[in-house]
């Protein structure tokens, strides 16, 4: 079964690459418009190794990756901090929930991209501005999932803890509410991370910062280098995939108690 799955996986990718290669040579055949996969792979490796052909004009894959991850980390960490804290309080207190609900529901439908002009006016073209866009994208999934998780903690756990002596609110939050709502929080974390990573590209595309994968995609278009554009797209996909895997792995490890857990 494993071997078969492996085979299907590479077969599927292989077909895709062949079709792409054929499409290029049959219909396009113009290196300023599109690049075939055979060319992209070479460019990708050259970019990653810092080949002077690209590095001299500022295209260095690893540096740009580092900047993008920096923007992501900054924005996502603040989103976790704010989203988790507010989600926890709002899930715990109905009054706070009612208080923040209108604000959240008003701001949430605004796409993070729509915040870019304000971010630039407010924070200029800085790393903080990029992080701000990422923050906007990630904070709501985290906040709402945490809030949902906290408010749906079963009453029986709270009552059990009360009769075992956990009569202080801080103890109840720390020992019951937070651990019980971790599955929902992690759900928000993964959704939020996905949105955050997409926002990295959006924020950088608009030149909020002079470095990063998203910015270089745009720059490479101006240089008419589709091979570079696609290489950077590929890098974005790979990092996004790795991030998702990291959260899944952390979730599996930290929430191992859920394994085989059936809701009674």
């Amino acid at each position, binding site marked *: 079964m494993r071997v078969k799955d492996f085979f299907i996986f590479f077969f599927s990718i292989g077909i895709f690459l062949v079709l792409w290669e054929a499409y290029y040579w049959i219909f396009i055949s113009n290196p300023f418009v599109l690049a075939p996969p055979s060319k992209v792979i070479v460019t990708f490796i050259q970019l990653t190794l810092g080949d002077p052909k690209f590095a001299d004009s500022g295209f260095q894959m690893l540096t740009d990756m580092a900047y993008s991850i920096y923007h992501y980390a900054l924005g996502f960490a603040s989103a976790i901090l704010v989203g988790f804290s507010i989600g926890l309080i709002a899930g715990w207190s109905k009054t706070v929930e009612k208080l923040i609900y209108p604000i959240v529901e008003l701001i949430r439908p605004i796409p993070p991209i729509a915040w870019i002009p304000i971010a630039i006016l407010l924070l200029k073209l800085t790393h903080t501005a990029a992080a701000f866009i990422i923050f906007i994208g990630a904070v709501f999934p985290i906040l709402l999932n945490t809030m949902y998780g906290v408010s749906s903690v079963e009453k029986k756990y709270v*009552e*059990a803890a*009360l*009769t075992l*002596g956990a*009569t202080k609110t801080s103890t109840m939050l720390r020992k019951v509410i937070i*651990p019980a709502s971790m599955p929902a929080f992690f759900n928000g974390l993964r959704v939020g991370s996905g949105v955050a990573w997409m926002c990295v590209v959006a924020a950088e595309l608009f030149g909020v910062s002079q470095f990063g994968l998203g910015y270089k995609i745009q720059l490479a278009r101006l240089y008419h280098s589709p091979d570079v554009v696609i290489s950077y797209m590929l890098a974005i996909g790979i990092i996004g995939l790795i991030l998702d895997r990291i959260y899944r792995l952390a979730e599996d490890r930290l929430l191992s*108690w859920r394994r085989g857990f*059936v809701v*009674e």
Partner: protein
Amino acid sequence: MSEILLQIKNIRKWFNSQEKELMVIDGVSFDVREGEFISILGPSGCGKTTLLRIIAGLEKQDEGEILLRGKSITGPGQDRSMVFQDYALFPWRTVLGNVLFGLEIRKIPKVEALEKAKKFIKLVGLEGFENSYPHELSGGMRQRVAIARALVCEPEILLMDEPLSALDAQTRNVMQSELVRIWQETRKTIIYVTHNIEEAVYLADRIAVLSRRPAKLLDLVEVELERPRNRFSKEFIELRARIFNLIQG
């Protein structure tokens, strides 16, 4: 005669407290003696669980009061632990973690807490399952964990709300004799809510028999049968019949 530990004085409770609509408990009074196993017996939905929850401090009575060693109960406290019908084990904690919960809250030093938790896990017969998660255990085993978790806190009173009703008949019988053994070893005061007459007669020193809603105290029955009790003895069956007729009225 041992000392009186808990006094339940003329408790009244309405389902809708503000409007005083739908009376659930109608003036129930009785005393609980230190070290005794007392059962609160009544038909389903009669308000016996509500009475236990009032004793636990999870709900408030509308009239009357409950005194523990002469002091009025106003909320949940470390002197009363409860075992729930659906176990209410923390699924994110192992068996050991669940038993440690109350000790962590009491800020018992780690080494001492661990030793104590292991002692009570052994008491309920779950040695070797310390690192299992609740979902990996059977219903009977989960209830053993819940009992250990409540007892390890060394409360004055152990409150039990139909703890065995979710188990199959055979496991229930085993757990009943286990419960008597644990009670005899720890000498805890136990208040045990059940709707099962046989269970009450098998377990309790005294049975507070409640009527249909609104719950009134019909009788406080002393069970003077030798332990271990024989469910098929003439006296046992006679007492069951007497209590059955009492409830049927």
